[in-house]
């Protein structure tokens, strides 16, 4: 063989991999989801608060990295770094799909679904969605509001609508009432967290 530099290349490989991981983590939605490393086993189970046992298998996520030989020769590791962006995008897509598939599986099972029936996303639908979920509050009584994940089109429309909704006194009142109800629910839940006889 020709002389090689395996130790240096191994370090570069790790650095490129770290860069790739960081790119994936920068995605606003995925960055809010906590990642946890598992060292063994072939599946996961979660027993929910209502005693349901949810089992999941591990799934592989991968992205292809295709680089021309000439680019490797001329650019070296930069050739990988320049191209790793597409791989990161591919991994982000697969990760997000996994998350949404799981969400769908769980919500289908529990029936915790609001069906818009193809109608535009209205304030009523927004409130109805919030009604269906648990909202927690911090020590100062501020709500931890959930993240709304929408398509780019709907996102653009919502950007226009949100100031309108905020300015509408009736909507504002309905939203505040909902938060108050959720606060009461949360207080009830928290006061149930206790050791009894």
């Amino acid at each position, binding site marked *: 063989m020709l002389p090689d530099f395996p130790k240096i290349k191994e370090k570069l490989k790790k650095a490129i991999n770290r860069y790739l991981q960081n790119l994936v983590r920068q995605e606003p939605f995925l960055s809010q989801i906590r990642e946890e490393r598992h060292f063994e086993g072939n599946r996961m*189970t*979660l027993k929910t608060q209502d005693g349901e046992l949810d089992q999941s298998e591990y799934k592989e996520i991968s992205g292809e990295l295709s680089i021309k030989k000439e680019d490797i020769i001329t650019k070296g590791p930069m050739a990988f770094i320049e191209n790793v962006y597409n791989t990161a995008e591919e991994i982000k897509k697969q990760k997000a799909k996994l998350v949404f598939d799981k969400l769908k599986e769980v919500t289908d099972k529990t029936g915790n679904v609001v069906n818009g029936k193809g109608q535009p996303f209205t304030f009523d639908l927004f409130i109805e969605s919030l009604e269906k979920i648990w909202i927690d509050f911090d020590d100062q009584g501020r709500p931890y509001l959930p993240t709304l994940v929408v398509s780019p089109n709907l996102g653009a429309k919502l950007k226009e609508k949100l100031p309108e909704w905020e300015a509408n006194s009736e909507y504002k009142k309905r939203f505040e009432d909902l938060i108050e109800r959720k606060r009461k629910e949360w207080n009830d839940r928290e006061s149930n*967290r206790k*050791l009894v*006889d």
Partner: protein
Amino acid sequence: MEQGKDIVTIDENGDYCAYQLKTGNIDLNKWRNILGEVKELIELPITHPSVDKTKIHKSFLVANGEITDEVRIQIDQMNEDNQRKGRMYSYLDIINGQTLLKEFIDAQGEFIPKDLENFRLFLELFLTDGGDFLPKDNFFSFLNNAIFSDIPKQKSKAISSISSSVIMTTYMLSPYQIKNNFYALFEAWTSLAACIVRYAQKAKLKKEDWIGSFNLVKSEIIRSLSLLKNETLKREDFLEGDWLGDGGLIYRARATIVLGTLAALEVYFHKTNESYVKDEKLLKSIKDNIRILWCWGESAFPYFFNIIKYLEFSNEKQIAQSLLKALLEAIIKSNSPKSQAGLSTPYYSASDILEAVLGINTERTDFSQFAGSSYILELIILMLARRDRREILEKNWRKISHIQFKEFKLDDIEDIFLWRTEKGVNHAEFPKMTQSWKELVKEANDFSRVPDLYLEYLDLLNFFLLVCPHRINKAIIGLLDKKY
């Protein structure tokens, strides 16, 4: 040496055999020097309560070098003379280096790694500096891939795998023995004992066929820990090796590991020795250093568990209870769902955490991943329930109920003794929001569904959890807490 006999055995025919061991070649000069010992070997009976003195034993002179022809002739003449004159002396046989080598290859050759990967692992272990912790991942891989990989059809081969594992381990540990690295030796012998039990279970061997090897390994565990204890108690502090880079968290981690392990040894003696007397010096060392103990992550739990147990039976219950309460509060604070940095899972060793904290790790560790769950919270809760500490739990239950209990559940129970396994499930569940105290106490004291394997090897498991803290679960900790 006792009456010319270094080793005494019983062979497959029930005959007693006595061996005198010599290093190097034996020529006429050396022979003349050792003749007195050889005569004792053949003339004096074996003195042991279980040996029938009227029965003549077989004698062997063993040399790892060569025995010259002149010496062989003298031995022949001596044997003939004894027979001719009707002396009731033992017949002297010889085993030289070449015979030893052949017998060794016949017995062990099968287990010397042939596969390149295993050979690399063997060499890495054998050529290590011996001053660091045992590379457990590699050690388990070597044992389970090179020695205990298959379950042979012939039981005798399985039994011989176990005997060979002891010899191979002895070779591999020589760098650690040279350095008197007693903690690494303890880790290695404990890992081997665990692998032996698992293999014997899988091969369905009768206990009497392998218990001899197992007991030998177990005695090495105790010996290593006893030596560690002697060394520790002779010292004024816990500094080790090069002082540059030592101290601070490294010092605290070392103190926690050493004191926790020695507490486990005392727990073992307390359980197994009726005439056990508590070691005041060790107790003082633990009490003096209690403030520097460091819970670097959940893998520190087994050390704290043993310190708590040791303090309890040494009539220091108040300190023990404070320590247990401090552990609970540390988990509740660090691993609450909104925490930015939780205590790591038991899969992260003290070294992993030190590297991360000191910023010298090659792989980034995201400590926020540990928030919201814990492998040890439930175990601590059940320990408090067993000690009737309702008030602590009552005060903290709201916070506790937000933290998931984690556990790795094995598909095959004997895999508890593996370093890693694919066969199992990473389980998580929330504590009950409203928890009945009565039910909690009942659960804490219910061992009806505990596997027999845990009960049978409880003393090994207590040591094993120090080596593989990720194998902790509520059944084992419950048993060790209540019944051990």
